[in-house]
């Protein structure tokens, strides 16, 4: 199908190819191995041998630390209180988490941040992708330019946004006052509601390009003849978007959702620099609270338990999405 389309639309092939390839490699990683893997075949055994070192490395760098963290989370281990020792406390740390209002607050903040920023990024990213998918002069330049925010390190971007939203000298207030929307400069980081504005704007600004590129790659796999046929039948552009583009873009959208939800759920550096979790703790996400427990209060047991909880949540989300993606991928593949 891809080959046929290439034959039909020769223009711009050079710029499109890498994007298509990168997408198909993502899919390849997520696909479940072919059922024809018979263990008795000598090639299979050899293949397993070849994979073994990689699996060993994964076990060493991923599974071992994870197991260690789980073990640690079953202990009371407070680096600053050595007189308590490191007694085994079973699930005490988890029980404490269940009764910790600051944790539940942090979880709610994380969910709010994830929902708002990912939806905005998805909508804006789709608009950008549709725009970039049209043939126009300088298209490759635009695609590179769009990537700039994504390329800027998060801490630098966060500092940039902190200056923009500085109450006294920031551009945001200058513009709002000049336009007449507000009379007095807003002290953004002092109110719980306004502190979210720079946080979410910064995240949307930074990651929309990533979303747009993933969706663009998805758009390019859609057969142009479908649109031609729809146009012949007199379908409007809106109808085409709803009935052709969005359904066929589903795998790409799911991919975006996986990456962005998991990333947003673990948000740390952006908020650490922008608000530090304040005012009070009203923008504190779970990752920042965990950092606080682990590295500032040096409560290794409790911090480990918090890490395990975050891991469980993100892992659960990933499983849900992958199941969704598997289904979507199968449909398109047929």
């Amino acid at each position, binding site marked *: 199908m891809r080959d046929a389309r290439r034959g039909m639309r020769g223009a711009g092939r050079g710029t499109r190819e890498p994007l298509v390839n990168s997408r198909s490699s993502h899919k390849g990683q997520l696909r479940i191995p072919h059922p024809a893997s018979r263990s008795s075949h000598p090639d299979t055994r050899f293949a397993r041998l070849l994979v073994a070192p990689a699996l060993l490395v994964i076990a060493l760098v991923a599974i071992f630390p994870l197991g260690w963290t789980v073990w640690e989370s079953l202990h009371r281990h407070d680096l*600053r*209180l050595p*007189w308590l020792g490191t007694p085994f406390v079973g699930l005490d740390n988890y029980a404490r988490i269940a009764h910790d209002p600051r944790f539940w607050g942090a979880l709610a903040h994380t969910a709010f941040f994830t929902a708002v920023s990912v939806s905005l990024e998805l909508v804006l990213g789709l608009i950008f992708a549709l725009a970039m998918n049209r043939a126009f002069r300088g298209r490759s330049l635009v695609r590179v330019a769009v990537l700039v925010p994504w390329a800027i390190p998060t801490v630098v971007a966060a500092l940039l946004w902190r200056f923009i939203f500085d109450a006294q000298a920031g551009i945001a207030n200058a513009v709002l006052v000049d336009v007449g929307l507000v009379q007095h400069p807003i*002290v953004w980081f002092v*109110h719980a509601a306004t502190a979210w504005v720079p946080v979410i704007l910064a995240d949307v600004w930074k990651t929309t390009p990533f979303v747009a590129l993933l969706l663009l790659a998805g758009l390019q796999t859609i057969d142009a003849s479908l649109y031609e046929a729809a146009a012949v039948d007199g379908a409007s552009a809106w109808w085409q978007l709803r009935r052709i583009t969005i359904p066929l873009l589903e795998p790409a959208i799911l991919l975006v959702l996986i990456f962005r939800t998991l990333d947003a759920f673990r948000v740390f550096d952006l908020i650490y620099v922008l608000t530090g979790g*304040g005012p009070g703790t009203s923008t504190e996400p779970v990752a920042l609270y965990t950092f606080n427990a682990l590295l500032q209060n040096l409560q290794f047991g409790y911090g480990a338990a918090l890490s395990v909880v975050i891991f469980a949540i993100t892992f659960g989300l990933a499983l849900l999405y992958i199941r969704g993606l598997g289904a979507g991928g199968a449909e398109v593949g047929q």
Partner: protein
Amino acid sequence: MPRARRGRIVGAVSLLIAVAACHARSDTRPVITYSGSAVGSQGEIVRKQIARFMTLHPGVVVKVQSSPDDATQRHQLFVQWLNAHVGDPDVLELDVIWTPEFAAAGWILPLDRFVPVRTDFFPAAIAANTWRGALYAIPWYVGVGLLYWRTDLLPHAPTSMDQLVAFAERGMHAPGGARFGIVWQGARYEGLITTFVEYLGAFGGEIMDAEGRVVVDSPQAIRALTFMRDEITRWHVAPPDVLTWHEEQTRFAFQNGNAVFMRNWPYAYSLLDDSAQSRVAGRFAVSTMPAAPGGKPTTALGGAELAINRYSEHPDLAYQLITYLTAPAQMLERAQATGDYPTRVALYDDPRLARALPVPLHDVRDAIAHAVPRPVTPIYTQLSGLLQVQLHRALTGQATPADALHEAAREMEGALRDAGCGMRGAGCAAPDAGRGNRS
């Protein structure tokens, strides 16, 4: 790789190893390591004084191990090292609020066996370094909170809390007045606690009492926090921006002529007096925070201490280095180089100190006399974190001062209970900590 090239590399590496081995063998002198602030003027003066110590004691090698200048990061690093029982650094520069924590954990040596003369130093600084009767660190330099005020806008420093507000308003409305009445450190970090400690003392409150009980929700404390909030929302003398400001932002505001009052540490004085960068050079003075009826003028005590790692292999040499660095001559030299205040009482009668320090000496002495240490408890940093959040919630209007302080007290008591700390810190210490000296 060509054989010849590989041979050369092997040769070079073995030569390096041989040189390193010879070097290690040729120098059998004991090595002690100092770790602390090693950047800027503080780093320069420490390196200079350590070099001089080595020429005076040719039998010892002293190494300087840089550690992060950011207090929180250095704390984290030190705790990790000491947990691993490493023997170096031997001499640690501690922030004044860490001594009880390190002492209770058994990470630093009690110093009484070296017979330091406690009365040579400011009592508040000694109190901050004493844990269960034993002295664990020698005060190196002190920092105290000062109230900077504009001499061109005000006749004299305020003498009461009401006058503080009245003067702030007067300074704002005077011709050529400042935009802000008063600025202080109000972001959610340790600086907020130091600001709060000064208001708290001014109203007669405390964070913890002499028995180690949490009393941060006393009526006096609620009045103090309400006063801070009212400065922002009721009298509009403090801009809400202070709730995001650290020391430097307040200094910029004051330096640009935008504030009538500023709460800050002594470091700001020489910068504000530098007409090349400051618009208020020669138009400001310092004083201590005034007090309300029932309270007393209070300045938060900051500063640095020198302590010995319990696992040091050369505790005697380490103490020699501490003695040298905290001797009057070195303190004077340091005051000259960095503006850090000496901790020795007698030096304040020394005309050389008056010449060395930018701040008038009687103001300094007055401020230090009112210095109050933050709670002396092994879990101070944790308590501080809990209190910071609640103070910030009250000041940003998310809770009333009373509710926030009750919540803070409840959480702080819970943390103390979890740590096993009873009255006067009973129970919260390593079994062998404070048992005396390692033989």
